[in-house]
């Protein structure tokens, strides 16, 4: 009964979001305030209904109700509770319902935080949100219904793909979707602005917090997915340029560009048309990512099931929204007046360079991802575009951006002085080179390019600190004055610095682990030893164990340095009984930012076992850097200017509107 209620709530939600998309639009055309006021109420109702529906599905998983086909296919009564819950979105139907839940959640957020928005804008934004929600609610109900019953109900479920039975599944998809779907708000704002044919700096001020929120979550989601793949798959890799990874990375690149161009629009009223286009493109890339992952055109761990009608349906959604948005853009963009002028060497100029490089990089990754699909569709020829392609193109394109990043904040708006900025960054560059030289001296060997990469990383960190240092006037004014100025700096200054420091830290991690990691594949018998990263690992033997829904064989390793035992590592291979599927549970030990990574291979006939041991120097910097970037996003979000400024502007516009009526 409760299952049918959940199903029914989803149908009601569909009706609600249809109302949310139609009535407010009519309201703005007829200038009918009562119709426009329907939007927030419908958004709240839609959110509550989908939330109820999602809770029902979660309940079915918690009580292991195998009469629900979706639960039977993806759960097992012996599975630990946390994986029962996360299993809700560990399959196609459930993950689409989570997608919709987050979409209507953002609509509800716009409705509740949008009290200061002009009435027409809010109505249009929510109407577009409603339209997107309608498409996805229809998609779920027509092609991916999670509430279908089985009769008679099977006694036991088929269990979740073991690779997904991990805490990573509990965190990675919700974070990623908060990012992906969060950009829908920017998209809706862009469409609303195009419908109205009016756009100003206040628009950018309203959009930027949403872009920042979505960007921070997307950063977290991608980083979490990368770390999950790293420790769960047992291959020791942290990024594979897999099409599915690219599908989340392309919106990230476009979203990063959007954050920066919205900044120009907010401060200087320039780049209006470009910013609107970027807002459309970023969410389009999110939709494209959803299509690639969910349609089954790619075979990957993310493509849960392949059903051609689903692919066609998502493709139709994709064409409708991207095509519709771009046509609207083509018709209306000319009516948006261009804004402030600026010299090429200026803060705006630097941000344009940022946008040029980021969007080109996004286009490159997109090309590499789609080319094999397009080629196969056109000629039937099957090719693969692998990491060498992406490393070469993306790496080379990013290089000038990394070097330019510290310059941006040091240039003045309108007209900047690049020589002065260069002089100020002299110390940062010196620090970078000095650290690289020190590392070179202590490490000896390794590719010269790697030291160059490390120098860039430290240069970026020092460059970001330089900006804060100069702004606070440290060394120029008295200490207590400098301290007060430092504390009083706007949140966005700290946000910028943190985000840029984060990139520097990530670059250091990537370069260090790529250039200096060591890998040993050896056949070991108990008592044998292997060296890695200055440690000696001794293989002590294997032990059998039993988990709730798997059996495992674990190898024990004693880790010693200079003869003294430091720690030990268990590394195992599991066999999940329900799906008859083996997985590798790598043994990982962290030493500061570096890790020792041990995974087991096949047992040999003579009692030995193949063991793969990696030393991953500074690898944690990759993810710590992304955490710092996220922190930067959060700090910027709490900049008081974003909170105080918006309502003031809104009141003025509202007053102007009322005066005009």
């Amino acid at each position: 009964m409760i299952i049918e209620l959940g199903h029914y709530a989803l149908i009601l939600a569909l009706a609600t979001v249809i109302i949310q998309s139609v009535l407010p639009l009519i309201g703005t055309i007829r200038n009918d305030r009562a119709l426009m006021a329907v939007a927030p109420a419908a958004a709240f109702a839609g959110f509550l209904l989908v939330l109820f529906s999602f809770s029902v599905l979660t309940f079915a998983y918690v009580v292991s109700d195998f009469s629900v086909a979706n639960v039977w296919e993806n759960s097992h009564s012996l599975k630990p509770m946390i994986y029962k819950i996360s299993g809700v979105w560990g399959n196609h139907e459930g993950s689409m319902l989570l997608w919709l839940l987050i979409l209507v959640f953002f609509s509800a957020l716009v409705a509740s935080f949008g009290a200061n928005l002009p009435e027409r804008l809010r109505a249009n934004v929510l109407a577009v949100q409603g339209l997107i929600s309608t498409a996805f609610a229809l998609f779920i109900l027509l092609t991916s219904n999670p509430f279908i019953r089985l009769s008679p109900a099977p006694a036991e479920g088929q269990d979740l793909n073991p690779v997904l039975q991990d805490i990573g599944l509990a965190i990675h998809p919700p974070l990623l979707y908060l990012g992906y779907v969060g950009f829908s708000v920017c998209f809706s704002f862009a469409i609303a602005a195009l419908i109205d044919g009016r756009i100003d700096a206040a628009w950018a001020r309203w959009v930027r917090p949403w872009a920042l929120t979505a960007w921070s979550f997307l950063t977290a989601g991608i980083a979490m997915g990368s770390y999950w793949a790293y420790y769960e798959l047992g291959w020791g890799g942290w990024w594979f340029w897999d099409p599915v990874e690219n599908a989340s990375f392309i919106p990230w690149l476009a979203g990063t560009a959007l954050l920066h161009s919205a900044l120009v629009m907010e401060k200087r009223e320039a780049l209006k048309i470009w910013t609107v286009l970027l807002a459309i493109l970023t969410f389009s890339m999110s939709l494209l990512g959803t299509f690639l992952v969910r349609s089954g055109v790619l075979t990957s761990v993310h493509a849960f099931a392949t059903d051609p009608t689903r692919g066609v349906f998502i493709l139709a959604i994709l064409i409708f929204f991207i095509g519709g948005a771009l046509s609207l853009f083509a018709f209306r963009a000319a009516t948006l007046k261009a804004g402030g002028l600026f010299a090429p060497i200026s803060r705006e100029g630097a941000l344009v360079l940022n946008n040029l490089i980021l969007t080109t990089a996004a286009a490159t990754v997109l090309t590499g991802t789609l080319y094999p699909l397009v080629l196969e569709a056109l000629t039937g020829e099957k090719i693969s575009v692998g990491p060498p392609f992406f490393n070469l193109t993306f790496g080379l394109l990013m290089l000038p951006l990394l070097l330019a990043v510290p310059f941006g904040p040091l240039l003045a708006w309108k007209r900047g002085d690049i020589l002065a900025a260069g002089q100020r960054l002299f110390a940062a560059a010196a620090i970078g080179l000095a650290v690289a030289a020190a590392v070179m001296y202590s490490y000896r060997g390794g590719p010269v390019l790697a030291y160059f990469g490390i120098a860039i990383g430290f240069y970026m960190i020092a460059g970001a600190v330089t900006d804060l240092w100069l702004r606070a006037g440290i060394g120029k004014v008295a200490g207590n004055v400098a301290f007060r100025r430092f504390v009083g700096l706007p949140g966005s200054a700290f946000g910028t610095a943190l985000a840029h420091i984060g990139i520097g830290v990530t670059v250091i991690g990537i370069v260090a682990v790529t250039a200096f990691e060591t890998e040993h594949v050896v056949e070991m018998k108990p008592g044998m030893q292997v060296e890695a990263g200055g440690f000696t690992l001794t293989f002590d033997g294997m032990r059998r164990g039993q988990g709730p829904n798997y059996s495992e064989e674990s190898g024990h390793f004693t880790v010693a340095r200079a003869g003294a035992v430091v720690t030990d590592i268990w590394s195992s291979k599991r066999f999940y009984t329900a799906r008859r599927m083996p997985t590798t549970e790598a043994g990982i030990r962290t030493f500061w930012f570096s890790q020792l990574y041990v995974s087991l291979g096949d047992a040999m006939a003579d009692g030995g076992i193949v063991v793969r041991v990696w030393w991953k120097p500074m690898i944690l910097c990759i993810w710590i850097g992304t955490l710092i970037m996220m922190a930067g996003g959060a700090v910027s979000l709490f900049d008081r200017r974003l909170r105080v400024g918006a309502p003031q502007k809104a009141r003025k516009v509202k007053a102007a509107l009322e005066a005009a009526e």
Partner: protein
Amino acid sequence: MTRKQKRLAVIGGGVAFLVAAVLLVMFAFSQSIAYFYVPGDLAKASVPPGTRIRLGGLVEDGTVKRGEGSTVTFTVTDTLSTVPVTYTGILPDLFREGQGVVAEGTFGTDGLFIADTVLAKHDETYMPKDVADRLKAQGVELSGKETIK
């Protein structure tokens, strides 16, 4: 410089950057694309040694042999032709005789395929889509368990 010239310089710079990016992408494609083959294709037209390809098919029953250390040799078949493969490293969890596999690497001069990457998916009913398509195209009957959904 006048403002017009400045603007032209900026636009020119942007276009130059884009052109450079396009050339870079084309160069990278020419360097790093791997074509996909099943053993039957290789019987018809050989691939020169050193060219990077992806080889797909089934791991032939009874051919997996452990060599020294972690070197493994096996034979990839599409049931009509076979290709011997050697690989050093740890095979994926799902690598099994009779199952679908994709190996990426190059041919040595002796006709032995030296793989540096071996892929098998996280699903016991899985056969790489590429392999299934090609095998079907060659008229190989796939038993229920090996077909993909």
